[in-house]
């Protein structure tokens, strides 16, 4: 212990101009959290990129050490530092593995936020796409739906057939071509436009649920949103869909656009506050985990802090709400009439590691009469979708998906259930890539349950 003073030899060339990326990072990074990592290494085996590469810098402990080295002035962030922060999937499996409770998810967002203000490393098309998506598209529900409409026109008008038939899609990178193929039919009518915004409980009312409809969910999986409302009604909840709600801001926060995320958070808090709800329910793990972070996101904003905490405390995933508070039938579906199928489940990382909910979906699945639930080996590991990771880091994402699909195959399941649109798309992609489409389907857990709720015996 006697010689235990810090033995850092300063690296060469640590002096940097004022207002540099290093300065911004030093201001943004939460030094307390950096210090809370005591470098035991328990996160290493949980990290997909560490497992992929075996390189310390590609692990949560390594990334935190790099952030701390920047914060301590031991090194200036360079291009390799940027790449390393962006290489993280953000699955937060390390948080679940961390006995010391280090908030890695917050640290990586702070790091990316700091980088994003300075970086010139995005290729021009990425920069343009980011601007359109983050500023022009996701914050505006109507524009999202217009885009959904455009996608629908593409899919239905014969343009898709032309694009595929002529080999036009082959001009795109392989991963985009495959993506196009598994894209579900889009809709320009979201859940509220389809069925209205107020839905009374069946039977005695347990409480009022405000439904968070999501952007991608509402455009690509409108049916799942409709089914969510139906399930909740049947389980005894009044459901309202506050029309003023907007994007959760998860993609913004994960990509270093914290200010944009904060503005979106305020919009949602206002919308659900006014609706006077007991719970805010999400059927997308990625969105839900972000909603649950509002308290942290607006912690330093005295005007919003209390409302943000109110919001986060009431955010809950649909499976958990149904299981813990809902009036459920003893079994879903009918064992006699239905053909017995085998189902398995891929965790949504943000549902598991962010919202800490992995039991509820499994308990629900074990109550399906005509289905046998088998656990997927390493279901708790990221599938490689990770928000827009499969678009920005296609190689790593592809390799992670390939490993995942080997385990999926072994389950011999007929249905692969998930709890998040990104995972659902990635699983559809995996099934397509592996040529399993004739025997396996990826389905949102809500849709699978809703189908069986119809024939349920209460």
């Amino acid at each position: 212990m006697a010689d235990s003073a810090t033995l850092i030899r300063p690296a060469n060339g640590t002096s940097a101009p004022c207002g540099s990326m290093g300065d911004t990072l030093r201001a943004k990074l939460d030094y307390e959290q950096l210090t809370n990592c005591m470098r035991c290494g328990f996160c290493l085996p949980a990290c997909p990129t560490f497992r992929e590469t075996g390189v310390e810098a590609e692990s949560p402990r390594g990334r935190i050490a790099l952030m701390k080295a920047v914060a301590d002035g031991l090194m200036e962030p360079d291009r390799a530092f940027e790449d390393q922060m962006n290489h993280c999937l953000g699955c937060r499996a390390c948080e679940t593995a961390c006995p010391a409770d280090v908030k890695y998810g917050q640290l990586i967002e702070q790091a990316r936020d700091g980088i994003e203000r300075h970086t010139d490393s995005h290729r021009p098309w990425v920069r343009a796409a980011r601007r359109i998506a983050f500023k022009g598209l996701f914050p505006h529900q109507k524009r999202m739906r217009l885009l959904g409409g455009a996608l629908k026109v593409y899919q239905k008008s014969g343009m898709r057939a032309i694009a595929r038939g002529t080999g036009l899609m082959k001009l795109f990178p392989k991963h985009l071509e495959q993506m196009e193929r598994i894209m579900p039919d889009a809709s320009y009518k979201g859940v509220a436009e389809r069925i209205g915004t107020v839905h009374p409980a069946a039977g005695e009312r347990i409480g009022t649920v405000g439904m968070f409809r999501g952007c991608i969910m509402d455009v690509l999986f409108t049916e799942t949103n409709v089914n969510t409302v139906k399930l909740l009604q049947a389980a005894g909840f009044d459901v309202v869909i506050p029309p003023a709600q907007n994007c959760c801001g998860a993609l913004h926060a994960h990509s270093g656009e914290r200010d944009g995320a904060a503005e979106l958070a305020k919009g949602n808090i206002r919308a659900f506050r006014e609706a006077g709800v007991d719970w805010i329910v999400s059927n997308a793990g990625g969105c839900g985990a972000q909603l649950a972070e509002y308290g942290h996101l607006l912690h330093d904003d005295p005007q919003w802090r209390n409302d943000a905490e109110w919001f986060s405390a009431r955010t809950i995933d649909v499976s958990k709400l149904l299981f813990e508070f809902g009036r459920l039938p003893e079994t879903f579906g009918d064992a006699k009439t239905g053909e017995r199928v085998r189902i398995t489940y891929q965790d949504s990382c943000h549902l598991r590691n962010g919202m800490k909910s992995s039991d509820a979906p499994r308990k629900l699945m074990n109550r399906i009469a005509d289905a046998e639930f088998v656990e997927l080996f390493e279901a708790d590991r990221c599938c490689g979708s990770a928000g827009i990771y499969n678009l920005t880091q296609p190689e790593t994402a592809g390799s992670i998906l390939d490993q995942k699909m080997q385990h999926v195959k072994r389950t011999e399941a007929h249905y692969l259930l998930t709890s998040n649109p990104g995972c659902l798309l990635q699983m559809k992609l995996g099934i397509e890539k592996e040529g399993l489409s004739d025997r396996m389907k990826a389905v949102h857990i809500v849709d699978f349950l809703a189908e069986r709720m119809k024939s349920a015996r209460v």
Partner: protein
Amino acid sequence: MLPDVVKRELEAVLGAGGVKDDPQSLVTHSYDGTPMQQALPDAVVYPENTEQVSGVMKALSRHKIPLVSRGSGTNLCGGTVPVNGGVVMVMHRMNRILEVDMENLTATVQPGLNTKQFATHIESLGLFYPPDPSSMAVSTLGGNIAENSGGLRGLKYGTTKDYVIGLEAVLASGEIIRTGGKLMKDVAGYDLTKLLVGSEGTLAVITEATLKLIPPPKAKKTMLAMYQDLYDAARTVSKIIENRIIPATLEILDNPTIRVVDDFAKLGLPLDMAAILLIEQDGDPETVERDIRVIEQICLDEKAVRVEVAKSEAEALKLLTARRSAFTALARLRPTTILEDATVPRSKIADMVVEINRIAKKHNVTICTFGHAGDGNLHPTATTDARDQDEVHRVEAAFEEIFEAAIRLGGTITGEHGVGIVKAPFLEWKVGETGMAVMKAIKAAFDPDNLLNPGKVFAKSARKRVVIEHG
């Protein structure tokens, strides 16, 4: 900075992808699991086979540049922090099981293989590799061997040294040495295998190991005994041994440790208890049943409030996994956790617990206690904050006194974590002046230029031992 000529020589051995000296690689190999220890290396290398290790070592010895070999960097003595700079050698690419010999019940492995992956594979073959350090999900077998890691099963099954029967290693000169073999008996000369186990990377770089495997126990049972007094729990430990029962695992956790572990693992542990004992027995079903019944009675006789037997193997596994998180979980209280592993004869466990609490109080520091009580190996852990220099000094003073108390009770300064940097100043207290001279001579015989993990085991200046008198 590595001189260009050396870098080129290393690249010639390893290929360009095997040598890194960018800031990112240096920073991420400047630490291990030890608090408050950090130093940058000059380069990081990733060998893929023994020949490459030998080639690197030859180049480095020509240029007199130090080398620190490491696995996952989870050790707790500063053992892999490159305090003198030089080259850090990461063994992760040498991670294969070379052979499992089902006739001799041995396995031959490369050093970068993950401990848990190996243990799980061996179990799938119907065999058993007992050493189970708490870091086993992260650590490598090479790291375990270099540190002679212990674990939760130490009291019944021994530690890593009891399972290593043969080694291949690269000396500081770059020469390759082979020791032992698939042999249950071997007295041909000095036992270099055992000498290299626990040598903390200061004598050679381990490149291959032959490990002894044993048949697994047929049954096991796990139980929790809960106490309102830490001393009662500690006394129970000695009583169990005295009654000639050697459990597979006999762990103690004090109240703060129970709380943080439960906060992490959400097991519903009894938060109102002053201490719990986590006890596992394995063996033939009848023996296990009988032992568990006797242990239960001993616990109750020693004032356990409650005794509960785990209902399923899954529940038992959760308890043991949660216990492995204890050290890190304590960081929930304060950011810096300084943990030691003073070890005493098993009959002295209760005395040691009393001493630790007395010393903590005297120095006004918080020390939580958990550990492998059954083998006399406690883990007093100070929860502090590295930024509070004054408190850190008080913690250091307290640990100095704890080491002194352990030795006075017939114990040692470290039972399983190794000397590394942090206990080097106290080594002489345990081994004496003559012991130090012999150890230094051994080091010089293996590594005359002091290139292998310099700055470890042997301190620049030793601490003077102040023997405290008690009235």
